[in-house]
């Protein structure tokens, strides 16, 4: 059963005549993790602010689990946990005190505050920092406190704006695992610059550029674009291109600057085995064969560049 947790309809935000975000629509179902990609200033944070009710959209509407953000902001906000770009932390409090305040303000009943704080600390690996002043924590731990305050009331939708900035690799791995875990019961929207991260944790990807959605779809579609139907082979005694083209399925061959050959094949074909056999029989000296992957970066640049050219 899929239930829609986030519905954004034609979100538009105009800053002084310029459209920072224009006509962004998407939906998110329960249990999905949505990755939000885009170059700097593309409108990621603005969109997130509108989703969380920090900014009123110039046009369009946001619904969280069917509750309209503009008409019933309190009910809608209760369903959201939000970590902005700069984690909102009261530095004069200890971690425990701050999380208790966050829980209280998000309407956790006073009986459950202790449990909620404990649970959030465990999930974000903060148990040993309970009594420390937030002011004295390192950037990475402050970021974790930011995430902890976003999930403390067990919201339906968790919105994280660049959650892994400033964390060390081990912490990043932990946080990614946490995001995956959150994706099980909640919906998660996260924005990031780190492209492999999207591939690792997200089910859905959106790429936004100059305020417009240029890509919106499942991560698999993006992966397909990435893998393409290409092989890279390395041969010590490469034959003429014509010979290679005779192998079943091969559509075109080009020589790469580093001496390797890139072979394109028709969709649905798998010429790898035939190529290897041919290479062995005819003594081409095969030393390498790989599927050719366009990096996610390339896909990303392609998508955002296309838009600029159009």
């Amino acid at each position: 059963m899929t239930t829609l947790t986030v519905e954004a309809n034609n979100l538009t935000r105009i800053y002084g005549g310029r459209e920072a975000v224009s006509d962004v629509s998407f939906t998110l179902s329960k249990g999905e993790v949505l990755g939000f990609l885009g170059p700097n200033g593309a409108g990621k944070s603005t969109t997130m602010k509108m989703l969380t009710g920090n900014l009123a959209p110039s046009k369009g509407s946001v619904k969280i689990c069917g509750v309209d953000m503009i008409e019933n902001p309190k009910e809608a906000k209760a369903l959201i946990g939000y970590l902005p770009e700069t984690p909102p932390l009261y530095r004069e409090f200890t971690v425990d005190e701050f999380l208790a305040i966050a829980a209280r303000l998000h309407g956790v009943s006073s009986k459950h505050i202790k449990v909620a704080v404990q649970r959030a600390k465990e999930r974000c690996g903060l148990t040993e920092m309970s009594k420390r002043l937030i002011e004295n924590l390192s950037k990475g731990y402050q970021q974790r406190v930011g995430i902890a305050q976003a999930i403390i009331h067990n919201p339906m939708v968790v919105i994280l704006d660049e959650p892994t900035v400033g964390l060390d690799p081990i912490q990043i791995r932990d946080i990614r695992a946490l995001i995956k875990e959150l994706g099980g019961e909640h919906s998660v929207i996260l924005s990031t610059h780190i492209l492999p991260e999207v591939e690792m944790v997200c089910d859905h990807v959106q790429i936004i550029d100059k305020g417009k959605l240029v890509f919106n779809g499942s991560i698999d579609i993006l992966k397909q674009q990435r893998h393409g139907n290409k092989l890279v082979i390395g041969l010590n005694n490469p034959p003429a291109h014509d010979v290679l083209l005779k192998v079943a399925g091969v559509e075109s061959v080009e020589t790469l600057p580093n001496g390797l050959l890139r072979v394109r094949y028709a969709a649905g074909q798998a010429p790898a085995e035939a190529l290897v056999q041919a290479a062995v029989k005819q003594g081409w000296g095969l030393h390498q064969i790989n599927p050719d992957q366009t990096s996610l970066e390339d896909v990303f640049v392609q998508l955002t560049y296309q838009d600029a050219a159009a």
Partner: protein
Amino acid sequence: MILKVARKELNSVFASPMGWVILALLQFAFGTYFLNGVNEYFEVMSGAIRPAERTGVTMFVGQSVFGLASFVMLFSVPLLSMRLISEERRSNTLTFLFSAPLSLTEIVLGKFIGLVSFLSILVAMIAVMLCTLNAWADVDFGYLFSNVLGLWLLVASFSAMGLYFSSLTAQPVVAAIITFVALFGLLIVDRFLTGDEASVANYLSLMHHFQPFARGLIDTADVAYFLLFIITFLTLTVRRLDADRLRG
């Protein structure tokens, strides 16, 4: 929910030594004035004055303590109120409150009540201090009550104005200076236009409305003035924060 925000504000004052230091220093100042007042009362009233001209001890000591209190509050309220919103704006914690299920009115009222409760501690301590006179004299509780009420309303008005100016800027110090100048202006505006009792300046002046309380007179017109003053500035603050959300 309003009280939860207020509680957060109070916690934040007492999270650092600042809250305690302010309480201690101000109490020290009031205590000194109180002591001086009691001492002087004996000197001044010791037979030199005809009985008809003598004033009660409550009024004599009260005048000096409450006079000092209203003056000290003029400086301390802007310093306390300056960080309420501007500090949150500067350290990006305003988003935390905006994303919580709270209406803007609840946020503003919560912050206002938080600050006023802290200041009420001070006012209550002054009241208790003056009540101790009752141990050896008959305290005029009516006079005391009107003064306490007056001071409390004055302090609440200061807070409301401080809160508004704090919402205008991201620099706490700027907020403090503007608040102080505006309060000072409102306190002394009637001095410039003396003589004409019906002058508009008299209606605007905070001091003009505070003085009846200091004399022991509770006038509903003055109470209404302070309440309107508070409501006006709290409404303006809500509007200002709403503009943030709309204009971004």
